[in-house]
């Protein structure tokens, strides 16, 4: 394995591992805040038990997210020192703000996890909310840094002397891509986490469909995840329209769009052949790509034929990842619609085995979409590390033997993934003995759920 490929794979693997924990870290505090708020308002023990049970899992995810994030901040330099030497002063702004946000988050997390009964109730609840807000803030900021790589701004570049001048860190942070990327990632984090949590609780409901603890958990998670899943395709559309103009090579790779044309068709599925420029199998919906990308069926969509060969991203990987992301995302949107319909008009469905299995099987789909989406945007940007300015191969560390650190990272993170899963299993196993409210049941026949509170849904 060459060093460049090893470096890219190591970075991809580190990011892919971290993003799962980052998503959980961004969204879970809000789920917990909802449960916790309902407890404070109603005194209903189920909500207290739920926020405590969730907190235990979240603490583990947070620690793993924090250390994998630390690794990433160093890996920027360990793997891409040439990139960091030039990019550091330009896009460091979002990173320094992210550092502040994450610092606040770590402090708030300490207060939240350890402050039960030690600090006033509302301060305690607020600290949980602050964890979420600063988590989302740091997510937005770090994505703004990534957006800069796709849409470089805030500097002048002279290719002859390879110098970067007139640096404007604020313009760099607010580059043209930051908003669409940040919006898409935040919605993705809430979708992925919401459905993952809902899925776990749905699975646990299959044998005891009326269990109140898991029903309330699933509903809170589906509320958050469902809204996000519904909004996500709109965000995706904004992103695609933006990419069509700024990074036509990326769009062409996503769509396996080899030939520039008007009335460009939207490809569903399909296996691209990068040598011949053909796509086998797959369904093309005429004109739809032009319409989605540019708002006009007649508008020309740039194909790979207009991109110099040495600037082509890997088409197959980008295309497959894109199809997976859109497929999973669309599926989740439809599940969300089903849930909102059932919850309003057919509450009995929420205890039905088929519904529960649907949610349970959807557990990994959000995270799958997140990983696929990141693959699209990162692989689709190749061969550039700074779009149009610096190539990835010119950014990599000169140190040889990177495959060994790659293997090490794979082994360590693989081990952690197994351990975290095992720990989650143990948390689930002990729910009944730790929480009395696990014995409570919900009446699925009622149009509205009977709890001591107002209707929750």
């Amino acid at each position, binding site marked *: 394995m060459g060093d460049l490929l090893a470096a890219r794979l190591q970075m991809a693997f580190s990011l892919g591992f971290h993003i799962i924990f980052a998503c959980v870290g961004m969204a879970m505090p809000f789920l917990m805040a909802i449960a916790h708020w309902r407890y404070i308002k109603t005194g209903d023990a189920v909500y207290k038990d739920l926020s405590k049970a969730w907190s235990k899992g979240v603490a583990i995810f947070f620690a793993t997210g924090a250390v994998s994030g630390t690794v990433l901040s160093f890996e920027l330099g360990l793997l891409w020192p040439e990139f960091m030497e030039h990019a550091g002063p330009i896009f460091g702004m979002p990173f320094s703000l992210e550092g502040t946000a994450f610092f606040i988050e770590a402090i708030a997390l300490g207060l939240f996890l350890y402050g039960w009964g030690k600090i006033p109730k509302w301060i305690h609840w607020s600290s949980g909310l602050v964890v979420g807000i600063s988590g989302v803030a740091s997510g937005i900021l770090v994505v703004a840094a990534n957006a800069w790589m796709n849409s470089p701004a805030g500097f002048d570049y002279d290719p002859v002397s390879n110098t970067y001048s007139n640096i404007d860190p604020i313009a760099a942070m607010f580059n043209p891509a930051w908003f669409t990327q940040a919006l898409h990632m935040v919605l993705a984090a809430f979708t992925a986490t919401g459905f993952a949590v809902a899925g776990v609780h749905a699975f646990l409901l299959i044998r005891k469909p009326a269990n109140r603890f898991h029903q309330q958990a699933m509903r809170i998670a589906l509320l958050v995840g469902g809204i996000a899943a519904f909004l996500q395709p709109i965000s995706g559309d904004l992103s695609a329209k933006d990419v069509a103009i700024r990074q036509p090579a990326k769009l062409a790779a996503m769509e396996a769009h080899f030939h520039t044309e008007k009335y460009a068709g939207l490809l569903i599925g399909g296996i691209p052949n990068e040598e011949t420029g053909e796509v086998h199998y797959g369904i093309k919906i005429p004109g739809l790509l032009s319409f989605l990308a540019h708002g006009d069926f007649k508008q020309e969509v740039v194909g790979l034929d207009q991109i110099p060969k040495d600037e082509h991203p890997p088409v197959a990987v980008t295309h497959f990842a894109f199809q997976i992301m859109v497929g999973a995302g669309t599926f989740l949107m439809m599940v969300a619609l089903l849930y909102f319909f059932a919850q309003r008009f057919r509450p009995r469905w929420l205890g039905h085995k088929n519904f529960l299995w649907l949610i349970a099987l959807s557990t990994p789909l959000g995270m799958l979409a997140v990983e696929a989406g990141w693959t699209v945007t990162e692989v689709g940007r190749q061969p550039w590390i700074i779009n149009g300015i610096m190539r990835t191969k010119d950014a990599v560390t000169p140190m040889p033997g990177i495959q060994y650190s790659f293997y090490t990272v794979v082994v*360590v993170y693989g081990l952690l993934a197994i351990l975290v899963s095992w720990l989650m299993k143990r948390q689930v196993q002990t729910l009944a003995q730790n929480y009395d409210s696990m014995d409570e049941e919900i009446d699925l026949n009622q149009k509205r759920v009977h709890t001591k509170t107002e209707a929750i849904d």
Partner: protein
Amino acid sequence: MYIIVLTFLLLSLVLYALLGGADFGAGVIQLLSTTPKAEKVIGRAIGPIWEANHMWLIIAVVISFMGFPAIFKVISTALHIPIFILLIGIIFRGTAYAFKHYDAIKDEKSQLMYHRVFVWGSLVSSLFIGITFGAMSLGKIDPNAADFYSGYIAPWFNFFSISVGFLATALFAFLAAVYLIGENEESEVKEFFIQKAWKWLLVAVGLGPIVFIAAYVDGLALFNELISSPLSIFAVGLAAAALPFLFKAIRQGKVLLTRLMAGAQTILILGAWLLLHYPHAIMLNNGDSLDLYDSRAPDATLAVLGWALMLGSLFILPALGYLYVVFKGHGPEETI
């Protein structure tokens, strides 16, 4: 703005040593012996604050790559291996701690495993922080190295860097033990940490001369540098002179005094190091150095970074203060 950014960088590094380093130290002091009660006290003491404590490292890293990119690049390249090992230590230590406390089933076998990983992760992290730091000043970093060994091994795999690694470890362990004296009222537990504190202080003091010897062996005129700088002599002298008083305060279990003195000792040592080397951040093989001022980012970047740091501190420092105020009390704590 350069001064402000530099100040924050140095502040982050000092705070990381005092807080994050002590966090590692809490693991190291359990290396040779521990008791169930001590373990409990340690777990409770670092629980609410460890994630926040380690943020100073992230702040330092971000300031480095944004404010002093050339230095960050050289460190990331030449010292890739010790940094990588440090990261493995950080990963294992952090996750072992969280797993130990949040595993829903607390059976002996897994708790012991977590404990061992936590302790060894803390040790590895402490060692390699010191090794990286030592390597920066030694002068064996060669950006134009001809072969793998001289480029990526020799700069840090030497007597001096490794002895600085051990010194850092001892310092962190000493700090942790001192802080822990005040974390519990029970005399048995207090005595445990008092013993650890003065023993690790002895180790640190003993390692001091070894670091100088190692410097001499590896061709670094550290001692000469020290005696030619009046401020450094003063700092080191003051630290040395305070030692007997520090030992006495530890023996007597004086919580506030030992904490202040231990912190002051650490700041004096780090300060002396800084004074000896400023403005050089990294000493290179060919006798040159990478200087902080010369490696600084353009003014626009430093300005924005400086403001971000100042504004950020307005939020972070009070919040951090509140966190400490809430949790520095004793008594049984309701963890979830």
